């Protein structure tokens, strides 16, 4: 099933018409030809990475429940990113990932999340640069920017007890 948001991003991948044209300031002209099929593979890679990052967040909150208020906004953003991108590869299976337990409490859980987010950032960035579709590249750039913002917020969080925002 393709969500409404997914349909918006799927358009440039499956048809010449494009429903996620950038705002007027960027010109807004649609791609004249359908993007090449390698973009679908690229999106599938990012989708798999978002699923993995989501599992890492879940593992961290299971390991250190007091991290939940800190990590919930990150998980919510990833869920929205996943919804949009997974809709663009509706024919492909969205992978699943089981959260792995993290031993060592809050500090190690938070460190694992930071590593995971940096890895996600790299994958999304590479996909953005490689995308054939400019509209897809723009969406991926926004995902990368969002991930960097959440990463910056996490970087300022002490690893000891107590959550600061």
């Amino acid at each position, binding site marked *: 099933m393709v969500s409404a948001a997914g349909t918006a991003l799927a358009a440039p991948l499956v048809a010449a018409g494009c429903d*996620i044209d950038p705002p007027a300031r960027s010109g807004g002209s649609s791609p004249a030809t359908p993007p090449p099929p390698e973009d679908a593979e690229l999106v599938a890679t990012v989708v798999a990475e978002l699923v993995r990052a989501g599992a890492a967040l879940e593992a961290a909150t299971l390991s250190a429940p007091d991290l939940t208020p800190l990590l919930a906004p990150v998980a919510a953003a990833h869920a929205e990113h996943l919804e949009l991108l997974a809709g663009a590869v509706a024919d492909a299976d969205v992978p699943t990932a089981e959260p792995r337990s993290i031993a060592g409490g809050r500090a190690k859980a938070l460190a694992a999340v930071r590593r995971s987010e940096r890895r996600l950032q790299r994958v999304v960035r590479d996909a953005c640069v490689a995308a054939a579709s400019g509209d897809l590249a723009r969406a991926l750039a926004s995902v990368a920017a969002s991930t960097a913002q959440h990463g910056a917020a996490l970087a300022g969080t002490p690893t000891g007890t107590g959550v600061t925002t």
Partner: protein
Amino acid sequence: MSVLDALQSALAEEHATLWTYGVLGARTSQATSPELYATLTTAYRRHRSRRDQLRLMVRDAAGEPVAAAVAYELDGALVRAPQVQRAAAGLEAAGVEMLLALVARSSGEVREWALTEATWSAVWQVELGGSAQTWPGAAELG
């Protein structure tokens, strides 16, 4: 819109951003708001470098870089430190949107550069007190 058009639009906005940062810095006391002053100074330097790079990219694309205006309009009162900080965060948010447009219209090294700068501005928006967003620079995707 061509890559050159997108570069020129980005450069025109960068001129305005740099001018505005100059005003914000002038209205911030290094003595009473040292952290904000340092944050604004870092941003000013980054945007000055970004403007210079955009000029080079425009020339590489066989264009004549657009010139800066003599002055630009400021939105709202910018007297107190929180107002200055919010205005600076707004500049970075607008910068992300502008750079994402360049990402969409470019490829290769130009796109990679625009992505790097968009990511920096998104992070600096948080540094300036903004919240992390789900779709920075592309709110309509949400």
